C-alpha cells in the first residue's frame, strides 16, 4: 500500500512539474516534454525485466512458486511499459521528424524487438503446463534478458543515429531544472512499477486464498 500511495503522489507531482514547471525546450517546444515519460518508462521497463530475470534465477534455484509470480508480474508490467515506450517514441518521431516510424533510430527499433521478445514469453506460458510452465518461463526470462543488451547493440553497430542522445558518458546534456524533473519522473515510474507489482502479487495471493476457501467449503 505504501508504494501505491508513494507512486500516486510521485506521478501527480512529476506530471505537474513536467507540464507546468520544467522549462520548455527552445528547439523542440512542447513535444520535448514527452521525453520525461518516454525515457523514464524505458528505464523502468528495463528494471522490470531485470527483476524478472533475477526472479527466474531464484525460481530455478529454489523452485518456489512466489518467484514465478514475481517473474510473470514483472514481465507483464515491463511489457506494458515497453509498449508505451514504442508508442510515445512514435509520437515523438512524428513531431520531430514528421514520420510515425524511423528505422534508422536505434532506440525505437530496439524497443520493438524487446516488445516482440517479451510478448513471446506469454505465448510460451500459455502453451506449457504446471511445473514446466514455471520452469520454462524462468529460463525464458533469463534468456530474454540476455537478448536485451544484444538487441541494443545489434542496431547500433552501424552507428547511424538520428535519436537525440541526452545521456552521454560526459553527463546529461540538459539544464539542471530539466534534469531535476527527469529524476522525479524516473523515481515516479519505478515507484509505479513496484506499486503495480505489489497489486499484482496481492491479487494472486487473494485468488489462491479464495480458491482454498472454496475448496474447503466444498469438502465441508
Amino acid at each position, binding site marked *: 500500500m505504501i508504494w501505491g500511495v508513494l507512486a500516486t503522489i510521485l506521478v501527480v507531482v512529476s506530471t505537474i512539474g513536467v507540464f507546468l514547471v520544467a522549462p520548455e525546450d527552445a528547439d523542440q517546444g512542447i513535444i520535448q516534454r514527452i521525453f520525461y515519460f518516454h525515457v523514464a518508462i524505458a528505464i523502468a521497463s528495463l528494471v522490470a525485466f531485470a527483476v524478472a530475470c533475477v526472479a527466474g534465477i531464484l525460481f*530455478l534455484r529454489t523452485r518456489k512458486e512466489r518467484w514465478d509470480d514475481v517473474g510473470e508480474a514483472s514481465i507483464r508490467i515491463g511489457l506494458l511499459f515497453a509498449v508505451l515506450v514504442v508508442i510515445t517514441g512514435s509520437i515523438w518521431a512524428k513531431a520531430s521528424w514528421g514520420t510515425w516510424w524511423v528505422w534508422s533510430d536505434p532506440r525505437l527499433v530496439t524497443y520493438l*524487438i524487446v516488445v*516482440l*521478445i517479451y510478448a*513471446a514469453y506469454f*505465448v*510460451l506460458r500459455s*502453451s*506449457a503446463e504446471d511445473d*514446466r510452465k514455471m*520452469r*520454462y518461463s*524462468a*529460463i*525464458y526470462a*533469463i*534468456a530474454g534478458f*540476455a*537478448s536485451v*543488451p*544484444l*538487441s541494443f*547493440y*545489434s*542496431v547500433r*553497430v*552501424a552507428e547511424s543515429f538520428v535519436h537525440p542522445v541526452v545521456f552521454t558518458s560526459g553527463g546529461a546534456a540538459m539544464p539542471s531544472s530539466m534534469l531535476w524533473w527527469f529524476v522525479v519522473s524516473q523515481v515516479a515510474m519505478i515507484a509505479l512499477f513496484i506499486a503495480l507489482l505489489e497489486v499484482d502479487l496481492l491479487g494472486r495471493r487473494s485468488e489462491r486464498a479464495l480458491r482454498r476457501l472454496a475448496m474447503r467449503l466444498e469438502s465441508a
Partner: protein
Amino acid sequence: MRRRQLIALVRKDLRLELRTRETIVAMVLFAIVMLAILQFGFGTRDDDLTRFVGGLMWVTLAFTAVLGVGRSYVAEREQRVLDGLLVAPVPRTVMLAAKSIAIFLYMTAVEIVVIPLVGIFFVKGPYWDSIGWIAIAAVLANICIALSGTLFSGLALFTRARDLILPVLFLPALVPVVIAGAGATHAVAGGPHDMGEWRGYCLFLLAYAILFALVSVATYDAVFDD
C-alpha cells in the same frame, strides 16, 4: 568420457540425417524457394539486388534455421530416444553441445549452397572475392543460431502447438543475428569492402555466441528437469 559421449551423440544425429536425408534436403530446398519468393516480393525484376543482398541472404537463413531447429528434436521425441538419453548418465551440457554441433553442421550445409547462389542470383558486381569474409561471418552466426536454437527448441519441445511456439520464441532472439549477419555481408559484398563495419558485426556475433553459450549452459539443466 564426456568427449566420447559428445562424439557419440553428434554421430547419432548425423547418421540419422545421412540415412533419411530429411532435414538438410528440405532446408536447402526451402532456402532456394525463400530466395525466389523474396525476389518476387520486391515487385520488380531487377537483376542487380546488391544493395539488399545481406537482407536476402540472412532472412532466408533465419527462416531456414527455424525449420532446421524445429526438426532437430523430432527423432528424439517421436522414437522416444530422448527418454533414453535423459535417464542415461549423460550431462545435460554434453546434450546441449551435441545438439548445437548438429544444428551448426546443418546450417553450414545449407550455406554452402545459399551463399554462392545469392551471388549468382542477385549480385552483378564483385562478389566472389568477398565470399571468404561472408563465410567467416556465417560461421559465427551459425554458432549463435546453434546455441540459441538448441535452447529454444528444448523449451518448445513439450509445449502444446510446439511448431508454432518455436518461431515465436526463436525469431525475436534471432533478430540481432540477422542484423549482424546482413550488416557483415552488406559491408563486403558487391563493392568496396568496409572492413571496419564487417569487423564490428563479427565481434558482435562473437559476443552473442558467448552470452548465449553462458545462458544455455546455466539453464539447460532445467529444460529437461522432469
